[in-house]
């Protein structure tokens, strides 16, 4: 596979009060292909957001490089758009103004009419036609995040980066927005990298799911290939025979293995992280630890969210 995004041996360390350093992660390798949807899952403090910020260019790694489309990245770029967890809209601008700000940043030579027409197209795409003149304070949380998505997509980025974009939304709104994002990403072949806490969200949206152990000293332990078909539907997800195998595998990791995973004991090679494709016959209910059985016993549809 040709690597469109290649994260090579990056590290992030912070100085501690005593004069030492805390290593959030080091020697981390991760790659993604063009048009792929990647999701990173791990507990708080494992450095997921740092990885995303490094990809966005908002943060610099202490070691290593990130190569996107054959070029090492240096700082932020209009090729990489970010959808922020808190939507980060400018409250003094209208919906149209917020999207137009991004458009005119990407194409400074365009005249106002062209910028507006382009921005309107993306407002339509996220289903907000008619709300162009509203200010963010007049919008619901879901609508604000739609504007955030429109703003990110409007600059036609090579990579879309999402930092827990739906975590602040209620379950119903989250569902519809997940549908929208999946539809748009499939239609446009958008390469997307997303952080989430929500296992179901990852299974629905991602082609590959990156599992990270707990920080500090977090490692990318495993890459899970999503065995579900491309034409999966959110509401029918739990009926697919491989859904529970995948979900249990990820939950098992989050609940137990993310704590106990030690790179040395497993002979873990950070450059060649094992790729797992859950199938029938993989861990079944019988084999699960008691802690997880509680989780599984809940009715299907309730997601196992870990924060």
């Amino acid at each position, binding site marked *: 596979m040709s690597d469109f995004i290649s994260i090579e041996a990056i590290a992030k360390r912070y100085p501690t009060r005593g004069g030492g350093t805390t290593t959030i992660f080091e020697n981390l390798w991760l790659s993604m292909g063009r048009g792929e949807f990647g999701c990173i899952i791990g507990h708080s403090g494992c450095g997921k957001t740092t990885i995303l910020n490094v990809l*966005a*260019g*908002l943060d610099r790694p202490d070691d290593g490089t990130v190569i996107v489309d054959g070029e090492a990245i240096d700082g*932020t*770029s*209009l090729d*990489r*758009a*970010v959808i*922020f967890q*808190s939507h*980060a809209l*400018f*409250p*003094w601008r209208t919906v149209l103004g917020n999207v137009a*700000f*991004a458009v005119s*940043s*990407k194409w400074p030579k365009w005249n106002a009419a062209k910028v507006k027409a382009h921005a309107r197209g993306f407002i339509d795409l996220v289903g907000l036609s008619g709300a162009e003149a509203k*200010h963010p*304070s007049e919008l619901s949380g879901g609508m604000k995040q739609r504007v955030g998505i429109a703003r990110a997509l409007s*600059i036609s980025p090579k990579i879309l980066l999402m930092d827990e974009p739906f975590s602040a939304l209620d379950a119903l709104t989250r569902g519809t927005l997940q549908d929208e994002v999946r539809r748009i990403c499939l239609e446009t072949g958008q390469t997307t990298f997303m952080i989430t806490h929500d296992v179901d969200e990852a299974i629905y949206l991602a082609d590959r799911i990156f599992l990270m152990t707990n920080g500090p000293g977090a490692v990318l332990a495993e890459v899970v290939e999503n065995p579900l078909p491309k034409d999966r539907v959110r509401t029918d997800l739990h009926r697919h025979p491989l859904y529970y195998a995948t979900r249990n595998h990820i939950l098992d990791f989050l609940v137990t293995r993310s704590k106990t995973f030690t790179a040395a004991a497993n002979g873990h090679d950070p450059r060649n992280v094992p790729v797992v494709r859950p199938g029938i016959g993989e861990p079944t209910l019988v084999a699960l630890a008691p802690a997880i059985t509680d989780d599984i016993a809940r009715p299907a549809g309730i997601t196992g969210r870990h924060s």
Partner: protein
Amino acid sequence: MSGSLTLRAAIVSVALFAVLLLGWHLATRGSGAAAGMDPEYAKLMGATATQGKSAMPGPLEIGAKLWEHLSRPFYDNGPNDKGLGIQLAYSIGRVLLGYLIAVVVAIPLGFLIGMSPLMHKALDPYIQILKPISPLAWMPLALYTIKDSSVSAIFVIFICAIWPMLINTAFGVASVRREWINVARTLEVGTLRRAFTVILPAAAPTILTGMRISIGIAWLVIVAAEMLVGGTGIGYFVWNEWNNLSITNVIIAILLIGLVGMVFDQLLARVARLVTFPE
């Protein structure tokens, strides 16, 4: 409940005003002619002694004098006898000039301090030392170097108006939300465009608060400054009328100073409302 809150508040306000006027009137009215006073002596002493009249003017006298001033606001009978309109215009002119110069200096400097941690650290000691100095303490230095009393007054206004604006601008600029800055960074927005399209609107409410504090202080200080430099202005008028022992005119000047200060504040409050955004 009877009537809206606004209406009831207005009734209380008017009632308080009426009580105040009545109390004032009763306290300053004469207590009747003094009996058995030698007419020669009474003539010498005036109404204060003969009628028991207070030297403090009552509301009716103030009203009459105020009417007189309002009907002739712009007369000019020489250096010590000018209409109140002219005196106020001098003061307002000085305040606006000193204030505008302060705006022009404070806002760009505040941007610099707010955007650059280096400049913040480097300039902080100067600000901390200069800020608490009473603006009037600058007056002798200003008079000595500028050699013009009117320009010195404007300088004093400038030096007192600059600090709240400078500090608020720096604070507003430095505390623009990280996420908005990150949006601008991911969109590769240049420094100048970022300053005008992201930081300025985000910091505008804080900057306007500083501007509002500054105009209030400037208007407070002009009265004192004009008492010192003399010649023209509402502050000089107050001091001149004190020397004339015209308490009536002093009270009228006090009322007008309050009124003009309120207008300044309300104007800036209106501008502040324009740039404030709901979250």
